């Protein structure tokens, strides 16, 4: 029985039937195997998934620093998504920074019974009176959808009344099967109401948006630092340290870079349809991955000066970290890792681990879709089910004035041969035979994976961190970076190497078993009895 079979063997038939297609053990066969993803979680299984609200407010809308994001609902949802995702943000000059604040309508029983719109309107008025924000976002929680509050109508009314931008998001927790639905809803809202509403022109020759970068631990700042060194103009970042002010002008960029594919591919695709902006899947996690991404971007523009400058910066950055990387590589070589994250991190971090000589033998996602595993080519084959049908799919037409393509079809065709333009091959092609891939993994499977594979380190979230650690396996949070970072780019790779070396080698691992349990405690010879 291979590891996959042993994992699934513990289930009774009805759970087995559900889980078997979510768990793959890769084999040496041509092609990418099919995985089941983005379907309902088995009730009661102790999933690591969150909800639609968490995806919309927690991930995409929350990090926008210059807008007042009001959670419309009872207090919990707003409270839990307050300052917890480490989207670092600093106010731009003269700008507002709402990141340290939590705004909620704190709905009470009477609001549930008689409707919460009145309270939401009053809350918006109070926010306007106190803070004078230019932008307000409203994120809906479960009861709001059930009682039928129309947050969109309230938003439109607020726009008229106060002359501000106000956007409502119907991201009630029960929508879809995970956070993923919330990403899609947030993307739709940004596309409908924000992107393309500004008219500031790019200052540089080549301008970029970084999509799906949430600036956890300052990753986005490190990426911006490197890209600016090469000479790119960064129009906007979606949405870590992001601002509505900047995102309004996103349509003026020459190229979109996509970091987290799952949370933001909708915006990339919609901008492609509306403005003709190409997107390039990049990965700035890992030295090799960063170099490849930088070269790909330069190649896209095809400017020899830009390519030369890219090589200069790469050489300079590499020289600065070479010794450190070698040091940690010597300490980490041959180790094996497991990694579970929400969207693209389980793929991205494999590149960095590989740089350090660590093989990722177990990987999976909480809320990914088949294309994140198998690549975008499978999208046409994905059947829509009832849960995804409920998420609005915008039809986007080319903007009559702003749509433009940089390259002719022929040039584009040739470019596609060398570059992942508008495409993403997914995580599975980068993994090897014997490796295991699990979608929507749960508590009992985590325990089994630890037992069967005994990885040297396991990357996951806070909900399983202490479970893993109590099992004797070093665990680091890959959503929050355990409050360290940045891990992106060249310098980030060294930070990561240092942090995981620390977690694997900390002396306390050797102290778990007390000496009296491992050493003989009785000394001296037996006495008495024989002479």
């Amino acid at each position, binding site marked *: 029985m291979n590891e996959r079979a042993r994992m699934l063997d513990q289930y009774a038939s009805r759970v087995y039937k559900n889980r078997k297609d979510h768990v793959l053990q890769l084999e040496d066969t041509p092609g990418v195997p099919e995985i089941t993803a983005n379907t309902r979680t088995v009730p*009661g299984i102790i999933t690591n998934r969150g909800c639609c609200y968490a995806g919309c407010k927690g991930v995409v809308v929350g990090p926008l620093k210059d807008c007042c994001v009001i959670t419309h609902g009872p207090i*919990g949802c707003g*409270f*839990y*998504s307050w300052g917890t995702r480490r989207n670092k943000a600093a106010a731009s000059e003269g700008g507002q920074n709402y990141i340290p604040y939590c705004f909620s309508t704190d709905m009470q029983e009477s609001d549930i019974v008689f409707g919460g719109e009145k309270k939401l309107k009053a809350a918006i008025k109070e926010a306007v009176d106190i803070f004078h924000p230019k932008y307000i976002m409203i994120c809906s929680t479960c009861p709001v959808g059930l009682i039928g509050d129309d947050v969109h109508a309230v938003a439109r009314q607020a726009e008229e009344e106060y002359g501000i931008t106000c956007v409502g998001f119907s991201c009630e927790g029960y929508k879809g099967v995970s956070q993923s639905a919330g990403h899609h809803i947030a993307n739709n809202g940004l596309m409908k109401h924000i992107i393309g509403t500004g008219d500031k022109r790019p200052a540089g020759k080549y301008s970029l948006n970084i999509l799906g970068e949430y600036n956890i631990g300052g990753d986005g700042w490190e990426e911006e630092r490197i890209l600016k060194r090469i000479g790119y103009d960064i129009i906007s970042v979606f949405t870590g340290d992001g601002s509505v002010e900047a995102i309004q002008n996103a349509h003026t960029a020459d190229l979109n870079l996509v970091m987290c594919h799952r949370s933001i591919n909708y915006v990339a695709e919609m901008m492609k349809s509306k403005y003709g902006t190409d997107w390039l899947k990049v990965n700035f996690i890992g030295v090799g991955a960063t170099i490849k991404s930088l070269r790909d971007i330069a190649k896209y523009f095809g400017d020899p000066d830009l390519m030369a400058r890219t090589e200069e910066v790469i050489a300079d950055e590499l020289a600065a970290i070479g010794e450190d990387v070698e040091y940690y590589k010597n300490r980490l070589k041959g180790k094996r890792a497991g990694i579970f994250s929400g969207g693209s991190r389980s793929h991205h971090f494999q590149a960095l681990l590989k740089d350090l000589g660590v093989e990722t033998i177990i990987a999976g996602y909480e809320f990914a879709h088949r294309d994140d595993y198998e690549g975008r080519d499978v999208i046409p084959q994905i059947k829509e089910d009832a849960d995804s049908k409920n998420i609005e799919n915008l039809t986007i037409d080319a903007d009559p004035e702003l749509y433009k393509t940089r390259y002719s079809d022929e040039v584009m065709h040739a470019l596609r041969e060398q570059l992942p333009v508008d495409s993403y091959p997914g995580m599975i092609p980068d993994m090897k035979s014997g490796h295991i891939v699990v979608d929507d993994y749960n508590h009992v499977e985590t325990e089994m994976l630890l037992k069967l594979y005994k990885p040297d380190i396991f990357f996951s979230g806070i909900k399983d*961190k202490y*479970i893993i650690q109590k099992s004797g396996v070093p665990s680091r949070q890959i959503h929050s970076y355990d409050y360290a970072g940045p891990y992106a780019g060249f310098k980030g790779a060294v930070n990561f190497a240092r942090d995981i070396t620390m977690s694997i080698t900390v002396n306390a691992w050797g102290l778990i078993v007390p000496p009296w349990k491992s050493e003989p405690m009785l000394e001296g010879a037996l006495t008495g009895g024989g002479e």
Partner: protein
Amino acid sequence: MLDLTPKTIYERTALRINPCKTCQPVGALYAALGVHRCMPHSHGSQGCASYHRTFLSRHFKEPAIASTSSFTEGASVFGGGSNVKTAVKNVFDIYDPDIIAIHTTCLSETIGDDVNSYISDMDIPDGKLVVQASTPSYVGSHINGFFNMMCGFINYLTEKTGSPNGKTAVFPGFINPGDMRELKRLLSLMETPFTMFPDTSAVMDAPMTGKYEMYPAGGTTLAEIKALGDCSHIVALGRITSVEPAELMKKKFKVPYTLLPLPIGVAATDSFITTLSKLSMRDVPAEIEEQRGQLIDILLDSHPYTHEKTAAIYGDPDTVLGLAEFCLEMGMIPKYMITGTPKEEFTKQAQALFAKYGVEGCTAKANADLFELHQWIKNEPVDVLIGTSYGKAIAKAEDIPLVRAGFPILDRYVHSYLPLVGYVGAMRLAELITNALMDRQDRDCADEDLETVM
């Protein structure tokens, strides 16, 4: 930091900014974790359980298990009966708890799911149990969730056989496992046979052994909860947190109770010990008297550094009341006391404290938020902040030292292992508060005024 907070106070009726409370289910989940071999279950969409487990793990730095009914839109429209029945079946199958404690969410409450009747329709394995509590997030706070789940267990499990077991039931309130250990130590020293319910010690502060245990050694056992009706008396700690389960026990099983403040500080611990002494009809042992004496010694030694220093105290109602009284005992002035929990009893108790110690110019408010507290501080500052991690932005913005106490503390280690209750807990608090003030004096003084001996 918090640069957008204006000094001018604006009366708000609808917008909650920087809350000082959270929702019922996280309290219910915590209470259920204090029952041995219990799986807490969240009846709603997945995000709730995910957020609650995350918060408890971040506060305790320990695993916090809970399953969920995993609602999607279908369940929200047609009712969550089938989801919760499937969930319960799967949880017993896969995780084998002795009991599942279901709490509702605002989702299942709004659609009107009748969990009680779902339970009666369930196929529950022999010897296993399922209980439930209604914990809508749009009522009260996590404190309500905590006592509502206690009431859930009492309603479903507790019996009165008619033969008293001679035990005292202790309802500890919403406190850390380290506090529960200290209460148990005092109960043992007082030779009082007891059942503590709930009891998260040895669950949320379990030792590292290299082996993960889904159900660690601790927690009130089902037999103990069942036998609560046979207890001779209840000591309910926390006038706001523990009154409802105590009242329920009195109403249903005629077990009398004594309602006491959380034993934080001298007077509140004195009341606890005195009550135990009366109940067990035993003298207070020398060890306890010795520790009390040490604490008073500490308060007298250190008073020049605490006298008339002002504090802003925020958090859960009973915790804030306890911390405030201890501050008063240290000669400090609890200038501002807020809780987010909407219980007017809090304000009443706070006013009684102000009167008892004859302090003026102090403000106490229930159903308040940290934004409001910050605005008060901007207008009239204090010397120290005492409360949860969410005050750290105010502390930084206004350059005021912060002593962490209460729930949640997300940015420090060890706090949940060490008590704030009892005389020993008060010593720890005295150390934390006095040293924060003294550190501040060292930091702010001129070089020539830096004292090596203080």
